[in-house]
Structures are given as C-alpha cells and as structure tokens.
C-alpha cells in the first residue's frame, strides 16, 4: 500500500517534469485564473443565463415557476408604460452622453493649460464623483423645490423670473435629473481626458507650431484624433452609465418613483419595481433581457463606429 503511493507520486512527478517551462507557466496561470473564473461563472454568467429562462416563466417568488413562453414579452411590448420607459432610457443616453463628453472635454482642454491652482481646481471637479449618488440626489432634490425653500427658484424669482416646476413637470423632470447625473460623472471623465491629453507627445505640437498651424487646426488635426482611444473609452463607459441610471432618479422622485407620470422612469427602475414591489420576477427578467440586449447593441455599435481604421 505504501509502495503504491510512492509509485503514483513518482508517476505524477514524471508527468509534471515532462511539461516544458512554457506549458507549466500556462498551467499555473490557469490555476490562478480558475478561481475568479469560477467565481464569475457562479455569480455572473449563471444568473445571466438563468434570467433568460426566468423571462419565459411566471415566477412570483411564492409559487413555483411555470413556463409561459413569450407571454411576458408580449405583455411588455403591448404596455405603453414600457415604451415610455424605453424612450426615457434613450433620452438619458442621447442627452447625457454627448453633453457630458463635450463639457468634460472642454474643461479638461482648458484645465490642461491652467497652471494656477491646477490641483485644487481639478480636485473640485473630481469631488462630486466621490459623493454618494443618494446623498447628491437628495441635495439636488431640495435645490429644485418650489418657493420658499428651493434655492434655484429663489434665485429665479429674486431676479423677476417665473418659478419653474422642475421635478413637478412632465417635460422638465428628465433633464432636471440629468444635470446632477452629468455633474457627478464629470470629474472622472475630466481626469481621463487630462491623462489622454498628457499622453500626446509635445513634439507633435511643437512641429505643428513650427509649420504655422493655429490653435483650432491643432485641436482638429492633432488633439482630437490622438484622443480617440480615450474618447472611445469614455463614450462606452458613460453610455453604459446613462443606460443604467437609477440612483439619481430614485432618490429625486421617491414619493412617486420615476414620476410624475413616468416622465423620468428609466428601464432599471421599472425592473426594480416589477421585481421588488410587484414580485413579478418573470416579467422583470424579461425586462432585464431587453436591457441586456440594449447594452450589448449600444456597446458593440459604439466600438464599431469608433473603431481604429487600419
């Protein structure tokens, strides 16, 4: 019995010894990678696949799930609230991403030239990114209040303008919520843009100046093209952020989440309500599948549009 173990051990030793160094490296690498891969497979990929299955059931947490085919999808596509929410989600994306991109680029571009108190200004821009979205949502919610407590309306009325309903308007509410959402992400985008700007070799600029190019031409011909990888990253990153917007909306409209009249409700909030207020897990899973598809398409589309032309 004892001798068996030795032979086995020796056999194993010989097997391991037969591998080349590079094979051993690969085996080691995979051994270490196995843990995160298993972890991801268990807590990310498996539930994702499970959601596809759930979306075709009527699971409500309480009773066992029954397969109902595409009934959830039919219900969803026939629901006007879903289309309203769908539209809102894209409004967040289509307003939020370009505005935050342009604003953060402009700030980064000019901040890059500022030497006076550069660090302090940069820190001030970055600060909102460190703040909890919920706390920020509540502070802005109070800014937007009507008289006599709302700061913005107090300023408006003190200079003789009419007070605005902001969050209490079906048309103004969505942009109103986007402002703090954009402001919160700005600091991060500015830092990334500044890093991108710093990475452009100064020799390019010197050469351009010697050739007599103006600021505008330098910006157009050198800075923007060379910033492309940075821009792609920020566009993808912020698009996904706006498509998944939740904290700001929920915290700024808790009395009537996503209201008034669903004017601010994004898809994620609808999923949350379907799942955790109505317990329609199957229906919520179907909405999740739609969100997943949108995120996938938007990300692939952006990568394709902004791809490197070789």
């Amino acid at each position, binding site marked *: 019995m004892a001798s068996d173990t030795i032979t086995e051990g020796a056999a194993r030793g010989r097997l391991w010894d037969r591998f080349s160094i590079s094979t051993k490296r690969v085996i080691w690498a995979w051994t270490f990678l196995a843990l995160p891969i298993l972890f991801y497979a268990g807590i990310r990929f498996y539930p994702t696949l499970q959601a596809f299955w759930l979306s075709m059931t009527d699971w409500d*947490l*309480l009773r066992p799930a029954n397969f109902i085919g595409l009934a959830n999808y039919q219900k969803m596509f026939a629901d006007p609230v879903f289309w309203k929410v769908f539209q809102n989600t894209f409004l967040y994306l289509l307003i939020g991403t370009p505005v935050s991109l342009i604003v953060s680029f402009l700030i980064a571009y000019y901040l890059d030239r500022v030497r006076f108190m550069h660090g302090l200004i940069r820190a001030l821009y970055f600060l909102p990114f460190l703040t909890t979205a919920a706390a920020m949502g509540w502070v802005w919610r109070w800014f937007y209040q*009507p*008289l006599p407590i709302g700061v913005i309306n107090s300023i408006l009325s003190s200079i003789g303008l*009419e*007070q605005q309903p902001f969050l*209490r308007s079906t048309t103004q509410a969505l942009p109103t919520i986007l402002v703090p959402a954009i402001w919160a992400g700005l600091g991060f985008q500015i830092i990334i843009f500044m890093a991108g700007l710093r990475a452009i070799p100064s020799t390019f600029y010197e050469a351009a100046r010697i050739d007599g190019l103006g600021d505008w031409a330098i910006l157009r011909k050198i800075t923007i093209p060379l910033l492309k990888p940075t821009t792609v990253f920020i566009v993808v990153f912020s698009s996904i952020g706006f498509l998944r917007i939740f904290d700001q909306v929920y915290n700024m409209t808790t*009395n009537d989440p996503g209201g*008034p009249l669903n004017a601010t409700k994004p898809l994620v909030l609808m999923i949350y309500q379907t799942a955790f*207020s109505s317990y329609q897990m199957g229906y919520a899973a179907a909405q999740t599948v739609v969100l997943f598809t949108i995120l996938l398409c938007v990300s692939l589309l952006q990568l394709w549009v902004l791809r490197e032309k070789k």
Partner: protein
Amino acid sequence: MRNKAKLAGLAAGISFLALGSAQAVEIEYWQYVFETRVQAMDQLIANFEAANPDITVKHTTFPYADYQTRVVAAKVAGQGPDVVQLFYGWLDTFVSGGLIQPLDPAVFPHDAIEADFFPIVSAMKRGEDYYGLPTAVRSLALFYNKALFDEAGIANPPANLDEMLAAAEATTKRDGAGNITSAGITMDMAGQDHHWWREVLVRQNGGVPYDDAGNVAYNDAAGAAALKFYTDLQTEQKVGVVGFMDEGQAAFRAGLAAMTIDGTFRLGAFGSNPFEWGVVELPADANGMRSNYSSYFANAIGATAEGEKKVAAEKFLAYISSPEAMEIWLNVVGELPARRDVAMTDANLADPIRAPFLKGLEYAHTTKFVDEAGQRQVAVDMVNRVLLENQAIEDSLAQAAQAEQAIIDAAAK
C-alpha cells in the same frame, strides 16, 4: 469501564440538552423598523418573557422598503418567522403565498374577536378564517397649526369642507408673483390624501369607491366631483400646491402649512413641532356627513410554525393583542387600541389629541387593497394628469378606474 461511564455521562448530557430545548422554545417575531414600534415591542417581549419563562422571543426588524421582500424571500428559503407583522392590505399576497396560517378558532374564538375588536378587524378574515389580529389601529384627522390660525384671525378649527376652504384661503400666504410661500392645506396624494379622496371625498359626494364585489365604482359623477374638489385646491382656490416643501408632513412640520391630513402614526413626529397645533375630525360635508379611513398592521402566525413553536406563537400573539399590550402600544407609539373597550375610555375620549381619531374610527372605512402601492400610484397619476397635463377630470378618472380595475383583476387570478 471508564468508557462506559463516559458514555453514560454523554447520554445524560444529551438527554439534559434535549430536555433544555424542550423547555425553552425560541420563536421569532418580525416587524419593520420604526423607532417607537421597536421600543414598544421590546417592552412587550420583556413582559411576555417574564410571564412565560419557557419561551424566548427573538425580535427581528427590517427597513420598511425591504420588509415584504424579506418575508417573501424567507419563505422561499424555507425559514420564515413564527409571528409576523403585516399591513392588512397585504393579506391576500401573504395568504396566497402560503406565508401565514389561519388562526385556530379554539385559541382565538371568532365571536370573541368580533365582540371585542373594532369591526375593521374583518379585513383580516378570508372565508371562514381569521388570519391575524391587530394591536393598534390608525385613522385620519385634520391637523392644524394654531399659530397660523391665530395670525389669520380664525377662532375655531374647521368642522366642514366649506369652513376648511375658508380657513385655507385665510391662512395661505403668497408672494408678489402669486407663488405660495405658506400653504393653507397640504396636497400630497402619495401621503394620506389618496385615502381621504377614496374613502371620504367620494362618499361625501354621494358615491362609493368600490362595490360589494370589490370592483372599482368611483367612475361616476361622485368620483368626478371628489377629484375636482381635490384638484381645485391647487387650480381654483390656489391654497396648496402638490410638491410644496416636497412632502405634506414636511411642510406642516416646518410651520409652512396651516392644515394637513395625516394619521395617528404622525403624532410622534409632530410632537416636537416648535409651534402649537391641534387635531380635529376630518371635515364633514354640507349635510354633516363624515367618513374616515382606518388601517392597521396586524400580527399573524407564520406558516412554518408547528408543534410547540406554534403553541408559543399563539401565546405570544394572544399577549400582543391583549388590552395590556394595547395600553403600552398607545403610550409608546401613539396608535389607537384595536379593542373597543380599551380605546373608548373616558380618559381617551377627553384627550384633545386622541379623541378626533377615536371618533373617526366609529365611521371609518377600510379599503380592501390588493396592491396598496400600485393602487396608490393610480391615484397619484390621476391627480397628476389633471394638474400637469390639463387632462379633463372625467377622462383622468376613467383612466384611473380602468388602471385600478386591471390591478384588482390581476390579483383575483
């Protein structure tokens, strides 16, 4: 030999442990977090454990927003509470989900329940079974700010809707541009106003919110008149604005609203108001007809409680629904006792704060909600469509009736 002795010792130990566990039953009680409710329950548990040394009660609380989800999730995981608190409006969900079990009529006789409790306890009955008993009940009343009333020269709080409108007009303060800087009355449909509209204003206009089968019945002239009365507060009388100070109760607490409609549960929060305030019954209509909405959280026995745990749970439920528990609850939380003889004492009826709520209980209605949050949202949207999109009263009402009926139908399936 020594081994045998060890074995014997072990066996004795095990049997002793088994004996110990047979004597001390631990049951779990679940409710949501609300400071005074948790304090009151801790006090009740201490009293109960002193009287029943063989039972320990574990008190578990969750934030209100997660509470239902936790109860449902615990059921899925197969380990629910033995005694659980639930809003009466969740009963259908809890029963159909198999989260709670009916009360044993031998322990909780029906005739005793019906004789001792306020009639609204019937909302805990499905078929022949009662599924839970309340400790305390809530009703609505009109809170008013005495300082603002004095300032406007109003001597008496309003007794009917006309007086309420007059008082609201007299106490509303506006700036040069006509913006309200201090409201006459708060408008907060997401708060208690949807109950006021549903069970009080609709009835005062001659309608009923739901028919006997539980279907929507407010889509008529009475419903329209009630909705118009409510939205007119903002559009015609201009004595309140939805969203003023964010929430109705916040406006009242800040001293920037002369009147607000709220429930007994707000008494604790309003206790620290830095001004004098009073409470009166909800205003009557021109004919003196009054109505009110009353609601409650009940305690029920979890579906998983069996054997000695079930016996312990029944004992605990009986204690927390006892007159003694109700007295403690009234003093700590401020909610009204659910037993008529504990509530309607001379001392309580002479109390200027408690009396209006107690009187309200006499003529209160209890809406049989199937999805409280969903049905409230329908009412919130109904008012918003009129105020924000200028939709006609009748159209908005019809749309709301249709949406709410859809919720009721979906729940019946």
